[in-house]
């Protein structure tokens, strides 16, 4: 870790400090936006990549596996570019204008381990968060290991309704994920291997 400023930001990310994260967001979004828009991306892609990169850093901090050899900014840009390049490659739209890469950023190419796995997670997470509150509650309780009976006790639904709700939520979530263009790309890979 290079300096106290970076340490402060990393602490903020780890603890979910909104003020620090917002400041980081505002400061770095324009650069990533420029990079992605210049490289066949759209505004939606900018947000996805930016947030997914931050999630990656968050997870690394949680696992205590983050190793910074340069500034946080350099590292973060590297992660964003890696994610975006990977997505472009998948979409076979590989038109990257490398001139956007300044020397500073090129110093420490960030390798994302299990990038396919990470990408899959991003898709699942995104769609789970898009579910309605009731669905999210039932599925969260389910995945925490609660029985149907326990879930119906907590939610106040009848056991039968809880069962029905759980099935429908899960089914529609899987369908949303499968419809995601990013997901289709992911699916192909394991079959080829």
């Amino acid at each position, binding site marked *: 870790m290079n300096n106290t400023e970076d340490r402060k930001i990393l602490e903020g990310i780890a603890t*979910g400090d*909104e003020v620090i994260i917002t400041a980081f967001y505002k400061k770095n979004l324009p650069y990533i936006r420029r990079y992605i828009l210049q490289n066949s991306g759209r505004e939606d892609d900018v947000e996805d990549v930016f947030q997914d990169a931050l999630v990656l850093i*968050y997870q690394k901090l*949680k696992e205590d596996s983050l190793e910074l050899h340069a500034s946080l900014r350099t590292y973060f840009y590297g992660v964003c570019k890696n994610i975006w390049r990977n997505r472009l490659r998948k979409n076979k739209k590989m038109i990257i204008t490398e001139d956007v890469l300044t020397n500073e950023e090129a110093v420490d190419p960030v390798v994302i381990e299990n990038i396919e796995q990470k990408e899959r*997670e991003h898709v699942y*997470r995104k769609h789970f968060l898009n579910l309605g509150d009731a669905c999210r509650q039932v599925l969260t309780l389910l995945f925490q290991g609660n029985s149907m009976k326990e879930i119906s006790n907590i939610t106040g639904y009848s056991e039968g309704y809880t069962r029905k709700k759980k099935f429908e939520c*899960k*089914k529609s979530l*899987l369908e949303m994920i499968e419809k995601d263009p990013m997901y289709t790309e992911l699916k192909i890979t394991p079959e080829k291997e």
Partner: protein
Amino acid sequence: MKRTPELFEKIEGYLTKTLPKEELIAFEKEIAGNQELKQEIEKHRSLHQIVSDQDTLEFKEKLKQIGDQVKKEETSTSFFSSFWKIAASIVVLFGVGTLLWYSLNNQDHTSDLYAQYYEPFPVEDISRGDGNVALQNIMKSYTQGNYNDVISALEKYPDSLKNTQLQLYLGNSYLNTKQEQKAIIQFKNIQKTSQYYENGRWYLALTYLKQGNSKKSKSILKEIVQYNGIYKENAVKLLEALK
């Protein structure tokens, strides 16, 4: 594969290792021979993993909110900047409007003058005695004001335009069919050595006047005054009116 509540419960039992032994053995057998089922199970497994990681989910949700907030602020900033752009445009529009009003008014003035001074170049009997029927017909059309007929007839015979008088007729025909640019070319083509040079200049000045270009018109009119010919008197009057 059809997704049913029963299938989901079996998969959930399998993933949480809560299936009774017999059921587990049967299910494992089924999985082994069914690629589609295998994939479905993997999807459920991923789902379980993601949703179990509540910390990351909460972090991602926070990012989503922050992202929305940042976007909102960006839009409101760009709203204000577009507000100023609109305000500036209104000012510009007013300016353009005033200018337009002024120049349109000005054009009204010049086209009034044009109407006041313009008379078609008079028909002279150029075909006297030579019995050229085609030419006679053209002159007939011109006199009757069938300018389009004159144009199409004369354009067919570019050679005929070596005759300066015919150039003047063609120019006048263009002028009366709103083809001022073409008229200008005809009038400009009339050489200084021609006895019709002054006529050409006069009609050129009138064409510019018709276009609302009083500046160009005035400079030609001054030339005509200098020339001191039959159009001098009209040129002086017109210059006075254009002041």
